C-alpha cells in the first residue's frame, strides 16, 4: 500500500516537473544558452569562442555557475527541447537535474533524454580563462590568487576590464598590490590609447621585475625593412648599414632577394647540383668533369652554363655590392606604435642599467659564498701547512671523510637538524683522530723533509680515496640540509642568496674567530707558536714539541672534517670531492701568504671573486673559469712569491 503511494507520488512529481522545463526557457540565461546551443553542442575549439565570450560578458549572475558546471562536465542538454540543465548522476541511468536559473532541483529523470556535454581540455582551458573574471571577486583569497596566477600566465584583453573592475574592492593588501601591478602590465599590452599605455610604461621606471621586462621587450621589437627611396616617419628607428653587426651583408642581400629586388644568390651546394644536372658526356659546358675539383673551375663552368641560358645567372660580388648600395635599410618598430615603443625603450634602458648593478651585487654575493667555501677548505691547511709547515696532500681526503661522516650519521639519525648537530662534532672527532694517527705514524719521521712529506701524504691520499670508493661506491651520496636551510634570501628578482650559502659564510666566520681565539688567547696556541718558531727553545721551556705537533695537526685535520660536512651540504659527497678542492685550497693558502690567517682570508676572497668574475665574463663555462683562475694565480705568484701577506723577520725563516 505504502509502496503504491510512493510510486504515485513519484509519478506526480514527474508530471509536475514537466511544466518547469517550459518555465526555464524564459530565463535570460537559458535563452542565451539556447541561442548558442548548437555551437556548444558541437564543442569544437575553433568555433566555441563566441559562445564562451557571450556567456562571460552577459552580465548574468548565473553565468559563473554555467561556466563552472560546463567545465566540470556537469552540463547536460535535453535532446528534445534543446534546453540546458546541470545534473548529478543518481545511478548509471538516472540523473538528478537542476535548473541554471535558480539552481533549484527540477527532479529525477532517466539520462536517455539528456546528452552530456564533454568539453575537451582545450575548451576547458578557454572556459577557465573566461572564469577568471568571476574568480577575481570570489570571497576566497586563495582562489583570487589563483586567478591572478592564471592571468599572469596567459593574459587576455578581457582580463584588463575585469581587473580594473575589481581592483578597487580588494580587501587583501597583498592581492591588491598584485592586482594593481597586473593592471598596469595589462594596460601596457592592451591599453586603448597610447597615452594610457605610455603612462603605464612610465610607472615601471626602474622596476626590476622579470614580468615588467617581459612585457616591455616585445614593444621595442624591430624588423629590418628595405626601400629604394628614403623613408621617414616616427616608426623608423634608425638607418643601418649592410655589413654592420646588426645586419650582416648576407642577411641584407637575402632581404633584397625576398623582396624580389635582386637576383638570388646561388650557394655552393646549389651550384654543385646544377653542374651535376648538366653533365653531358663527361663534360659540363665543355669542361671536363675531372677538372672540376676546385671552386674556381666550378665557377667557370657555371658561368659558361649561365651564358648558354641553362641556369640562372649568379650575382657577382661587385654586383652585390652595387645593389646593396642602391638600397637603404631601416630598422622599424613593429611591436607597438612609435611613441609607445620609444617610451618603452627609454624605460627599458633605465631598467637595464639598474639590472646590471643588481647583477653585480648578486655576483658579489656569489663570490662571497665561493670565497667562504674556499676559506673553509683552506683553513685546516692554514694550520697544518701555514703554521706547522707540513704539506698535507691528504687534506682533501680529510674533507671527504668529514662529509662521509655526515652521510653515515644521516643514515642512522633521520631528523636532519639533529643529524647535522651530531655530525659536526663527530666529523671533528673522526678526522682529528685520523690526523693524529697520521702525524704519529708518518709525518713526524719526515719533519724538515717537505718533499718527502708531500709524497708520503700523496700515498695516503690515494689509499684513502680508494678505500672510500670501495666502501661507499663511486656514485655521489646525498648529505641533506635541514629544512630550515632550504630556500633563499630574496632581495629582488635578481639578487638572492640561498640560506645554505649564508650558513657556510657564517661557519667560515666562526672558524676564523675560533682560529684566532685558539692561536692568540689559549695556552695551546701559545705553545704552538713557540714550537713552530723554535722547537728547541720551546722544549727547554718545558713544552713537549711532540705533543704540540700532534695536537696542532689533529686540530687542523679536525677543522677539515667540519668543513667537509659544510661542503657536503652544498655539493654532493663523492670519494673525489677532496681532490676537487685540494689544489684550490693550497692556492688559497699560498696566494694569501703562508703562516697568516688573514692572508688565507684574503687569498680565499681573491680566488673566489676572481673565479666568479671570470665566470661572469664567460658564463657558459665554469671549466674555463677555473683554468684562467689557476693561470692567473701562477702569474700572481711570480710577482708576490710569498703571497699577499708575507711574513717578515724570524717568523719567515722558521
Amino acid at each position, binding site marked *: 500500500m505504502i509502496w503504491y503511494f510512493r510510486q504515485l507520488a513519484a509519478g506526480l512529481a514527474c508530471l509536475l516537473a514537466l511544466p518547469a522545463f517550459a518555465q526555464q526557457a524564459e530565463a535570460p540565461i537559458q535563452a542565451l544558452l539556447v541561442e548558442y546551443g548548437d555551437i556548444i553542442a558541437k564543442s569544437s575549439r575553433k568555433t566555441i569562442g563566441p559562445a564562451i565570450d557571450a556567456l562571460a560578458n552577459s552580465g548574468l549572475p548565473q553565468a559563473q555557475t554555467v561556466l563552472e558546471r560546463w567545465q566540470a562536465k556537469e552540463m547536460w542538454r535535453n535532446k528534445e527541447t534543446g534546453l540546458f540543465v546541470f545534473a548529478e548522476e543518481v545511478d548509471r541511468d538516472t540523473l538528478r537535474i537542476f535548473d541554471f536559473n535558480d539552481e533549484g532541483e527540477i527532479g529525477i529523470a532517466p539520462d536517455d533524454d539528456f546528452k552530456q556535454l564533454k568539453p575537451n581540455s582545450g575548451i576547458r582551458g578557454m572556459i577557465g580563462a573566461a572564469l577568471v573574471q568571476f574568480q577575481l571577486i570570489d570571497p576566497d583569497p586563495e582562489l583570487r590568487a589563483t586567478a591572478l596566477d592564471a592571468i599572469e600566465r596567459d593574459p587576455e584583453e578581457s582580463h584588463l576590464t575585469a581587473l580594473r573592475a575589481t581592483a578597487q574592492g580588494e580587501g587583501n593588501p597583498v592581492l591588491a598590490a598584485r592586482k594593481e601591478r597586473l593592471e598596469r602590465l595589462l594596460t601596457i599590452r592592451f591599453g586603448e590609447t597610447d597615452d594610457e599605455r605610455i603612462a603605464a610604461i612610465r610607472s615601471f621606471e626602474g622596476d626590476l621585475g622579470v614580468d615588467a621586462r617581459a612585457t616591455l621587450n616585445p614593444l621595442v621589437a624591430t624588423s629590418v625593412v628595405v626601400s629604394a627611396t628614403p623613408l621617414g616617419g616616427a616608426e623608423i628607428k634608425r638607418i643601418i648599414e649592410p655589413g654592420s653587426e646588426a645586419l650582416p651583408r648576407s642577411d641584407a642581400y637575402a632581404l633584397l632577394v625576398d623582396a624580389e629586388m635582386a637576383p638570388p644568390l646561388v650557394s655552393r651546394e646549389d651550384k*654543385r647540383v646544377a*653542374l*651535376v644536372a648538366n*653533365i653531358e658526356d663527361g663534360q659540363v659546358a665543355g669542361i671536363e*668533369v*675531372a*677538372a*672540376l*675539383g*676546385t*671552386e674556381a673551375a*666550378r665557377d667557370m663552368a657555371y658561368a659558361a652554363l649561365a651564358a648558354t641560358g641553362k641556369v640562372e645567372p649568379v650575382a657577382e660580388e661587385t654586383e652585390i655590392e652595387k645593389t646593396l648600395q642602391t638600397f637603404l635599410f631601416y630598422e622599424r618598430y613593429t611591436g607597438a606604435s612609435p611613441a609607445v615603443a620609444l617610451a618603452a625603450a627609454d624605460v627599458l634602458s633605465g631598467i637595464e642599467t639598474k639590472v646590471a648593478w643588481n647583477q653585480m651585487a648578486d655576483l658579489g654575493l656569489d663570490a662571497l659564498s665561493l670565497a667562504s667555501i674556499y676559506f673553509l677548505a683552506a683553513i685546516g691547511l692554514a694550520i697544518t701547512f701555514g703554521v706547522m709547515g707540513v*704539506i698535507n696532500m691528504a687534506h682533501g681526503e680529510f674533507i671527504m671523510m668529514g662529509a662521509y661522516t655526515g652521510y653515515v650519521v644521516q643514515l642512522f639519525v633521520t631528523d636532519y637538524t639533529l643529524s647535522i648537530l651530531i655530525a659536526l662534532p663527530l666529523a671533528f672527532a673522526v678526522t682529528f683522530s685520523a690526523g693524529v694517527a697520521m702525524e704519529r705514524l*708518518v709525518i713526524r*719521521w*719526515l719533519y724538515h723533509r*717537505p*718533499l*718527502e712529506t*708531500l*709524497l*708520503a701524504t*700523496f*700515498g*695516503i*691520499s*690515494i*689509499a*684513502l*680515496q*680508494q*678505500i672510500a*670508493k*670501495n666502501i661507499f661506491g663511486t656514485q655521489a651520496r646525498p648529505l641533506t640540509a635541514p629544512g630550515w636551510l632550504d630556500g633563499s634570501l630574496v632581495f629582488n628578482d635578481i639578487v638572492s642568496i640561498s640560506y645554505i650559502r649564508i650558513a657556510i659564510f657564517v661557519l667560515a666566520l666562526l672558524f676564523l674567530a675560533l682560529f684566532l681565539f685558539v692561536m692568540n688567547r689559549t695556552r695551546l696556541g701559545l705553545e704552538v707558536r713557540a714550537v713552530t718558531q723554535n722547537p728547541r727553545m720551546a722544549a727547554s721551556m718545558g713544552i713537549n714539541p711532540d705533543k704540540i705537533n700532534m695536537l696542532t695537526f689533529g686540530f687542523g685535520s679536525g677543522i677539515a672534517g667540519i668543513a667537509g660536512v659544510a661542503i657536503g651540504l652544498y655539493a654532493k659527497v663523492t670519494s673525489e670531492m677532496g*681532490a676537487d678542492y685540494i*689544489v684550490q685550497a*693550497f*692556492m688559497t693558502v*699560498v696566494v694569501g701568504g703562508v703562516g697568516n690567517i688573514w692572508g688565507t682570508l684574503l687569498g680565499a676572497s681573491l680566488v673566489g671573486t676572481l673565479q666568479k668574475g671570470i665566470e661572469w665574463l664567460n658564463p657558459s*663555462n665554469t*671549466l*674555463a673559469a*677555473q*683554468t684562467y683562475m*689557476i*693561470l692567473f*694565480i*701562477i*702569474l700572481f*705568484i*711570480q*710577482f708576490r*712569491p710569498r703571497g699577499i701577506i708575507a711574513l717578515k723577520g724570524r717568523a719567515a725563516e722558521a
Partner: protein
Amino acid sequence: MSELSAGAFRRKPLVVQYPSLLIFLGLLALFTLGVTVLSEGFGIGVISTSFVKTLGKTLCLCLVALAMDLVWGYCGILSLGHMAFFGIGGYAIGMWLMYARTELIVIESLAGQALPPTAQEISDGIATQIFGVVGASEFPPIWAFAHSLPLQLAAVVLVPALLALVFGWLAFRSRVTGVYLSILTQAMTLALSLYLFQNDSGLRGNNGLSGLQNLPGLGDVPQSVVSVWFLWASALALGLGYLACVAIVSGKFGSVIRAIRDDEARVRFLGYPVEAYKLFIFTFTAILAGIAGALYYPQAGIVNPAEIAPIASIYLAVWVAIGGRGRLYGAVIGAAFVSLLSTWFTGGQAPDVNLGFATIQWVDWWTVLLGLSFVAVTLFAPKGIGGLFDLIAAKRSPDRHGADLGPDPGALREKEANE
C-alpha cells in the same frame, strides 16, 4: 774543487764512467729481440699482440720516468707536470693520426660523387667527422698543421718544450722552489686538463682523440706487426733517452745539477747560473716526456684529458720513488715494475685473497696497497728498489768506510764518485 774532479772524470769515456749504461742497453736490446721473436707479428706467436702493446707502452712509461728521475732525482725539482707534457705529445701526434685517417675515409666516401671533391669539401667532411661529437663542424685554429706529419712531429717536441720553457722561466726566475714549485706545477697540470675537458677547447673535450692505433695508409698491415714496430720505436727512444740522460748526469754538468739539488744557494754563490741549469733540465725532460707520449698513445689508441689530470703525474712520482730516484736505472725499474704490476692487478688476473670475513678483490684494493706501499717506501726505503743494487755493489768495491775522497770536507764523496 768539484770542477777539478769533474774535469778529471770527463777524460774517461762515458761507458767507463757509467758502467750500467752498457748493461742497460744490452738488456734493452735483448728484451726487444726476445719480444720480437716471441711476438705474433714477427715470431712464433707466444706473446699476444695486446701484451706486446702493453710492453711497448711500458717502455714509453720508462722513458717518461727517466725524464722524471732526471728532473726530480738529480735536479731536485719535484715536478707534478710531466705527465701533462706526456699527454701533449700524445695529442700532437694524435691530431695528425686522426686527421690523416679521417681524410682517407672522407675522400673514399666522396669518390662516388659526380664531381671530384674540392679541397674545401674534403676539409669540411673531415671536420664534421672529427668534431661531430662536440657539436662543431669547423676546424679550430689549433688544428692548422694537423694535415702535416712533419709539423705535428715538430709539435711533439716544440709544444712541451715551449710550455716548459715559459713556465720554468717564470717559476725559477721568481725563485719558487721545493713544495711550492710542486704545487705550482700541479696547478699548471690541473689548468691544462680542465681546459682540455671543455668541449670548445678544439680537442674534442672529454672524448679526447681516438682511433689512434690505426695508422693512416697502413690499413692492410695487421696490428700484430704494427705493435712490434712501435715496440722497436719505443725501445730505440728509451735507449737513446737513456744515453742522453747518462751524458747529462755524468761529467761536470751532472755534478752541477746534483749540487743544485743538494744546496741551491751554495751553487749560486759559486757563480753558476742555477736558473739556466734548472731551466735546461726542466725543458729537456719535458721534451723527453713529449716524445714518450707521442709513442705511447698510438699504442694505447686513445688520449683524453683524464690522462693529463694531476693524479697521473703523482703516479709518475710514485714509480720513480719506488724504483729509486737519483739513479737512472732505478726510474726504469720502478716504472716497469709498478706499471706492469698495476696492469696485472687491475686487469683482474690477480687471485682474490679470502680473509674469511671478507674477500679482497685486487681490482678494488690494489690502489690502496700501492698508496700504502708508497708511504712505506718513502719512510723506510728512500732508495727504492734500486737500493738493492747498492747492496751488491757494496760487496765488490773497495771499502773506504765512507771516507771522503779528498782531504777537506767539501770533497767528492765515495758514494758520489761511484755514480
